């Protein structure tokens, strides 16, 4: 078995998903089964093979340094940015108090 309950607990915490004991019990063997199955990739001889970077041969296109050239990717739309926020106050997003 690739992952035990303790490992799943750790992964769930990294992923910020709270999991009850029951869920952990249920999820651990499922994840193990999937991970055992993907581990067959280890059989493939990949010596000298570069990992894929671009799916279709293509290199990165850059954009010009222009502010708000396209309103869809520009700023100045605070109302849109805050419209769906669970707690928007005084133009900010509110979150539980953080101690740094």
């Amino acid at each position, binding site marked *: 078995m690739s992952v035990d309950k303790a490992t799943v607990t750790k992964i769930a915490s990294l*992923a910020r998903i*709270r*999991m009850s004991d029951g869920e952990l019990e249920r999820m651990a063997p499922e994840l193990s089964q999937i991970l055992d199955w993907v581990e067959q990739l280890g059989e493939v001889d990949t010596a000298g093979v570069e*990992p894929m970077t671009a*799916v279709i041969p293509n290199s990165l296109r850059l954009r010009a340094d222009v502010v708000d050239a396209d309103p*869809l990717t520009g700023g100045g739309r605070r109302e849109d940015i805050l419209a769906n926020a669970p*707690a928007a106050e005084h133009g900010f997003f509110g979150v539980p108090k953080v101690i740094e």
Partner: protein
Amino acid sequence: MTDLTQLGIKPLRDGVAAGEFTAREVAEAFNAAVADASALNAFIVTTPDHALDAASKVDADRAAGKALGPMAGVPIGMKDLFCTQGVQTTAASHILEGFVPRYESTVSQKLWDAGAGMLGKLNLDQFAMGSSNETSHFGNVSSPWRRTGTNAPMSPGGSSGGSSAAVAARIAPAATGTDTGGSIRQPAAFTGICGIKPTYGRCSRWGVVAFASSLDQAGPMARSVEDCAIMLGAMAGFDPKDATSLKMDVPDWAAGLDGNLAGKTIGIPREYRMEGTDAAILDSWERGKQWLRDAGATIVDISLPHTKYALPAYYIIAPAEASSNLARYDGVRYGLRDLPDGAGLQDMYAETREAGFGDEVKRRILIGTYVLSAGFYDAYYTQAQKVRALVARDFEQAFAQCDLILAPTTPTASFPLGENSEDPLAMYLNDVFAVPASLAGLPAMSVPAMQNEGGLPLGLQLVGRPFDEQGVLNAGLAIEQRAGFSAQPDKWWC
């Protein structure tokens, strides 16, 4: 008067343009069909007014003698993975329930610009993770098809199962889909319709809720190959807002359609002849070869040696990307927030994501988190990307011998809802034939071939070289012309 809901994109568009009926009549007919079909649970929200408004505009434009777009007068279903301005967009999740975007995805905007209207937002597997439409927060989608002599609700496939169900049930003439590892082709095959995933980069991903960025591609799902060609033409095109968008002209695929395959060579990958594949599926494959031969093509055997490893590679890469893409659902800027009394920020994240994500989404986030975590990255992720490169190389080498590849779309026909839902691995195997083309970013299409002994549709898949959507569509047309698939599900839902 004809039943307008029996018509697809081209006859609707042409009928509106010719004045045989109005766009508004079309919208009203489909709005009514949608309203009658709630038993399918294909839609998460319906937007009859959107369809009517778009139709009225088309009718007014026609009256004013203005040029009409290629989708003018056609109301479509929109997979609820595309952000639509002013209309709730959920990705079938609880965590995005109530989210109303202030922006329109590039693909949906292009469709509206082409004259289409929206019937509603279609149900799907949550965050497009699933192959049966059983992971939606808003309930399963039922296929309109039933196995002969049974009443068990069947899977419409996934993740674009709302789309496939709606098109197959004739409550939408066409719908958008997205395909990450088969999510257009597999549901199309399960429901007896056509669907094409274009070359990676053809359709902008801007405004489409991301599942796995290096794999996600939008595409049309419709009743005919020609309808797919028309709609794909309206959806595709360069978008400067997507850095992976292809800066290439969009050919007029519909105009270029030609079912004569003289001079074309079709490859049959021997590795796709897997154990556990239905006899009927193998039968459909044989018929497919014959149809393509009849259309003038030469059939050759080819090898795609890494086929077996495509699926496990996919189940590392897609969850890894998803685990990161879904980190933004944190209860701060939009969507669900679960904040128990006294909880701090990190607790809020964990509670929100616990309450907001379904099991399959959690499972994939956890797998993705695990394979990227310290000490495992190279063994899993890097190895998977190397295998992916090998899968792509297999195709490249195969395309030195053939122009197109013919394979089944799925290893089985549709299955009853609930049958595979307890076993994630069994479910993943549904996409075994679809995933390789996704990993390689190739254009691929499913076309209905026949029905199995239970009356369920089976699809055939065509895979082409990068950018050769035309070749894929042409071969699809050749199959469509010869398969003569005209079966429709019995209308049990209204």
